């Protein structure tokens, strides 16, 4: 769907009407056959001891998603204030040693020493598809969302490229390309700055019953995909059997990507290059603990107010009766 200024306004009005009519709600079922479930939450397990760093997954990701890569319009609009800088990767599409708008998966290498033995690990890095994704929860525009399969995706048709998703992501995964997207049709100099891109775990292929390209092509079978509860059990078992370590089960409140490594992740994290486009592997707590607690207060508040208001009215009526 292409969006211009007119269809944007029409969609906004339709959205308002739809929301008033009553939102539907689905509950993601992890392998359950609940009638309300729309899909089974899928997770992936990456056995890092198997990855040889051949890059086949990176190439497959590029081929599978090339038709969705941004084709920016140049020159870019002049931005106000001037502190807002363009992010342009369109002339650096071949960069494959970090995440970019044209490279949604890359291989990170960690080498060092652990327990008196040297190690070298290759780590395919991409979006981890959080269970409670900050990018989707905090996107003010509805461009980022989580679907019933546990896939977190950014809608490139409506994303304005404000980069908030990247700021709130504990791993700063999404990457921006300027000169493309809806902002060009709204207020190109004053709002937005392009579109954010990241792995959506080949959402279209998965929806059609297929497998993400990176998993399908891997010659070593590094990745396994399946229902989250089964994959998590498999990841725990693998870690236990090999004396390995698990990453992703609790990080950021739980993700749908599990890494199992023979080396502790704090050691791995020390050994990898980190920085823009190169995410860390440090421990990450749940950033939404307070919000989730406050959510209960938000649900209870109208009822509490209603009861107080009704009591106030009844007391007022009783007081009037007493005066009569």
């Amino acid at each position, binding site marked *: 769907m292409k969006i211009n200024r007119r269809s944007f306004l029409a969609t906004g009005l339709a959205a308002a009407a739809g929301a008033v009519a009553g939102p539907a709600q689905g509950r993601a079922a992890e392998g359950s056959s609940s009638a309300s479930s729309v899909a089974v939450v899928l997770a992936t397990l990456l056995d890092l001891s198997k990855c040889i760093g051949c890059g086949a997954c990176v190439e497959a990701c590029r081929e599978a998603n090339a038709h969705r890569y941004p084709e920016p319009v140049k020159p870019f609009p002049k931005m106000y204030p001037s502190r807002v800088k363009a992010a342009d990767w369109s002339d650096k599409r071949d960069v494959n040693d970090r995440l970019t708008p044209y490279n949604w998966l890359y291989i990170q290498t960690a080498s060092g020493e652990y327990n008196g033995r040297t190690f070298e690990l290759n780590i395919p890095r991409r979006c981890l598809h959080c269970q409670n994704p900050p990018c989707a929860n905090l996107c003010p525009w509805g461009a980022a969302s989580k679907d019933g399969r546990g896939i977190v*995706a950014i*809608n490139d048709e409506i994303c304005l490229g*404000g980069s908030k998703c990247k700021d709130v992501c504990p791993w700063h995964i999404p990457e921006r390309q300027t000169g493309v997207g809806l902002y060009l049709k709204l207020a190109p100099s004053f709002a937005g700055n392009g579109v954010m891109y990241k792995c959506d775990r080949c959402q279209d292929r998965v929806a059609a019953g297929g497998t993400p390209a990176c998993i399908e092509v891997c010659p070593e079978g590094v990745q396994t995909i399946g229902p989250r509860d089964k994959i998590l059990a498999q990841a725990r078992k693998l870690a236990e059997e090999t004396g390995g370590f698990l990453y992703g089960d609790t990080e950021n409140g739980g993700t749908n990507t599990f890494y199992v490594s023979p080396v502790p992740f704090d050691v791995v994290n020390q050994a990898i290059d980190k920085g823009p486009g190169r995410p860390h592997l440090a421990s990450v707590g749940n950033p939404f603990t307070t919000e989730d607690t406050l959510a209960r207060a938000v649900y209870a508040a109208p009822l509490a107010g209603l009861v107080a208001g009704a009591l106030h009215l009844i007391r007022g009526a009783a007081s009037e009766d007493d005066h009569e």
Partner: protein
Amino acid sequence: MNKRGLNLIFRLTVFALLFTGFAQMPIFARYYLADVPGFAWTADYYLNHILHYGLAAVLLVFLGWRLPLAMKRRWTSGGLLLTLSWAGVVATGLVRVMKNQPDVFFSPNLVMAVDWAHLGFVMLLGAVSLGHALAARTKADAAQ
């Protein structure tokens, strides 16, 4: 607390909700507000999110409390529009809170619809409230 004090708290809550709501957009850092000494927090998305939730709870207590009183009043078309605007803001806000629960998901289209509708209802509420205030002032001037 007297009625005047409650009204003041209500207005401050609404203003703070508007502020923390707009802080959900990446604009305060872009447009220098976060550079002003003492205002760096305006660009802290997580903090503003928590504040927005807390303030929403306070607002909902107020609105719930006022609902039985409002039901007793005679409805004018302006009052009805104002109530519908509030209802829209509240309904879409509650859906957004639900959406953010870890074990709940909505379709991407619904997420977009609710987000845009929330913003739309806030703008509608602002316009209707302004119209209400102007009408009240005109009426007061005419009465003098």
